[in-house]
């Protein structure tokens, strides 16, 4: 432990020695190194919006994009090693609360008060970025993870109507099946199977049930009849996919979206990041493809998103650069420009909805009132528990010998034993 600290300390010292000349040369510039994971083409274009606006505001943006989970790991390692960047990225979940408790992040109360965050941000996101009454993170977007995307031409050809409840959903499925198309394509990766389960859970059991289950950790609910109905619908979907969508196991979400785009499949349940695929294929919302937020109309919309955090560096110039960054990221104009590229919607509910596409305009209505949306499970439970129940969903989705009762028993046990 001591040795490790010494080692990282000396590494940090070396880094500092190497960069201090550079810093001196660029003089007064408000310099911020940003570690993020937005490296794919559309994501990189989105973060460039932030970079450009930050430069226009007099800052110096040092980009450090690292693909995938490695970004968080690099950020955490540098934070613990004593050489943090000025800005780092997380998801809107509880995953950064340990870092807050360790006292490694700057609190953003001044910026929050000046920007009136309590008013303009959705309540649940406001809760996640606050800990013990202090603000520690800046949310930049809202993604919805339960959307139904469908191919309009395929629906017309089969004479099917977009679903309004699960009965009409399965009625549409029968027509599509008879027409020889894959009715609903599911990418068989464990996180996609979890996403499907959560979409069913929200549409069948509703918002209160969901919040009691994940926020209050009321494991009794798992044994309830409502949960039985949820699992029944999940099972019907599973059997349908097994029968009609043979290539499902292991298929990525974007390959699955492309089946809907090319008309091989009629529907997909996926987050709004799928919109980027439709856009890059040159399709138009409401013309070529349809989107239903929350899968079944009137169901709660599940939101997630990204935040940026600002480590303590012990340097006042850094703190000023961080403050500038916070204001740039939450600026109304920047929010619209950024989110239109990213496929998500602005995190502020006070932007002009006419500047959003038809899907986004539907979504922002759902995020402006607390009663119509919930947070993703990661906002309420630890990644550990979320992962453990995901293992159960995926096992059930792929098993032949696991009964509904087994699934209930395993979920209850997991809720009771995993912190």
């Amino acid at each position, binding site marked *: 432990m001591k040795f490790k600290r010494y080692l990282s300390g000396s590494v940090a010292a070396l880094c500092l020695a190497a960069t201090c000349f550079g810093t001196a040369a660029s003089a007064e510039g408000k310099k911020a190194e940003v570690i993020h994971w937005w490296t794919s083409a559309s994501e990189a274009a989105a973060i460039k919006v932030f970079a450009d606006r930050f430069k226009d505001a007099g800052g110096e943006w040092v980009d450090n994009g690292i693909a995938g989970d490695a970004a968080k790991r690099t950020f955490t390692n540098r934070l613990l090693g004593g050489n943090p960047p000025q800005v780092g990225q997380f998801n809107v979940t509880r995953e950064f609360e*340990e870092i807050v408790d360790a006292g490694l992040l700057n609190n953003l109360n001044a910026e929050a008060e000046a920007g009136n965050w309590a008013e303009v941000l959705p309540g649940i996101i406001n809760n996640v970025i606050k800990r013990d009454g202090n603000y520690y993170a800046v949310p930049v977007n809202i993604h919805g993870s339960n959307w139904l995307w469908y191919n309009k031409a395929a629906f017309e050809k089969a004479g099917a109507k977009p679903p309004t409840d699960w009965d009409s959903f399965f009625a549409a499925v029968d027509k599509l099946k008879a027409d020889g198309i894959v009715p609903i394509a599911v990418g*068989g990766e464990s996180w996609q199977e979890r996403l499907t389960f959560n979409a069913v859970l929200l549409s069948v059991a509703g918002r209160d049930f969901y919040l009691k289950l994940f926020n209050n950790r009321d494991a009794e609910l798992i044994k309830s009849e409502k949960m039985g109905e949820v699992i029944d619908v999940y099972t019907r979907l599973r059997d349908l996919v097994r029968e009609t969508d043979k290539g499902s196991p292991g298929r990525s979400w974007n390959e699955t979206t492309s089946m809907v785009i090319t008309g091989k499949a009629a529907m997909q349940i996926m987050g709004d990041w799928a919109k980027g695929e439709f856009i890059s294929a040159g399709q138009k919302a409401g013309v070529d493809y349809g989107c239903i937020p929350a899968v079944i109309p009137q169901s709660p919309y599940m939101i997630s998103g990204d935040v940026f955090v600002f480590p303590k560096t012990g340097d006042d110039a850094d703190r000023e650069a961080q403050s500038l960054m916070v204001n740039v990221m939450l600026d109304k104009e920047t929010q619209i420009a950024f989110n239109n590229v990213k496929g998500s919607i602005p995190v502020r509910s006070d932007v002009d909805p006419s500047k959003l596409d038809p899907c986004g305009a539907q979504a922002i209505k759902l995020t402006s009132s607390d009663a119509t949306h919930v947070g993703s499970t990661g906002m309420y439970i630890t990644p550990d528990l979320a992962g453990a129940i995901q293992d159960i969903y995926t096992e059930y989705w*792929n098993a032949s010998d696991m009964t509904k009762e087994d699934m209930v028993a395993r979920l209850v046990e997991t809720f009771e034993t995993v912190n």
Partner: protein
Amino acid sequence: MKYPLISSRLAARLTILPFVVIALTIFVGCVLWSVQLSFTSSKLLPNSDFVGLDQYIRLFNTTRWIVSLKNMVVFGVLFTSGSLVLGFLLAVFIDQKVRAESFFRTVFLYPHALSFVVTGLAWQWFLNPALGLQEMVRVAGWESFTFDWLVNRDFAIYTVVFAAIWQASGLVMALMLAGLRGVDPEIWKATKIDGVPTWRVYLHVIVPILGPVIFTSVILLSLSVVKGYDIVVAMTGGGPGIATEVPAKFVLDHLLQRANIGLAMAGATVMLLTVIAALAPWLYLKHVKKGANG
């Protein structure tokens, strides 16, 4: 003569001293630290809140971990034996003084130049029912042809074994071939004179001579069994469901995604014990027994 010997030995020892120190501190130190963490409630950050065997109890109550261990055994046995047999046969084939030997040698060794990730991806495409082999045969006219092991939870692990054998047997071949070329030609001449059939010579004479080479191959192969991670991630992602999960993936998932260092380290400790248990008989034979004899 005596003094220079001692001083050169001393110089050698001094030279390796820093490396010994580094190895002890980093390897042994980190191993001990990991084991210690497995007895704590560490989440995202390491802590020293001692919870006894809780993590181990949870570990062995987790279906996914049990499936992972089973898969490691299935994968380990089939992959090691498969690569050895195939590698040996390829080496024997090339040893028959075939034409264009270097061409074949290169072809057989080529898969080893690919990483497990590339191997996994290539085989995933090839075995994907909607894209690869099955679709190709169906398009060619045999419409009822079905080969869906990759997406079948009972057989998916065997496709991973195939891919891994394909990748590793070239290396075994190269090692074995070097061994075969080291066999004294006089032995071959002697067996020819005695009229022993070639296959018996290979089985009863050559294989024992190749003992050390086989041993080296087994060690190399079993290391990739325990470390086995990348090929599974690239090929199946542990799926369908949890059918092809392996211990290393369990540990890394809990370390990197699920912020549970304690449980991850408990898994890692069990993996370490597995390796030690596998190596113990050999270490015993190599050191203790030798010590007793000599």
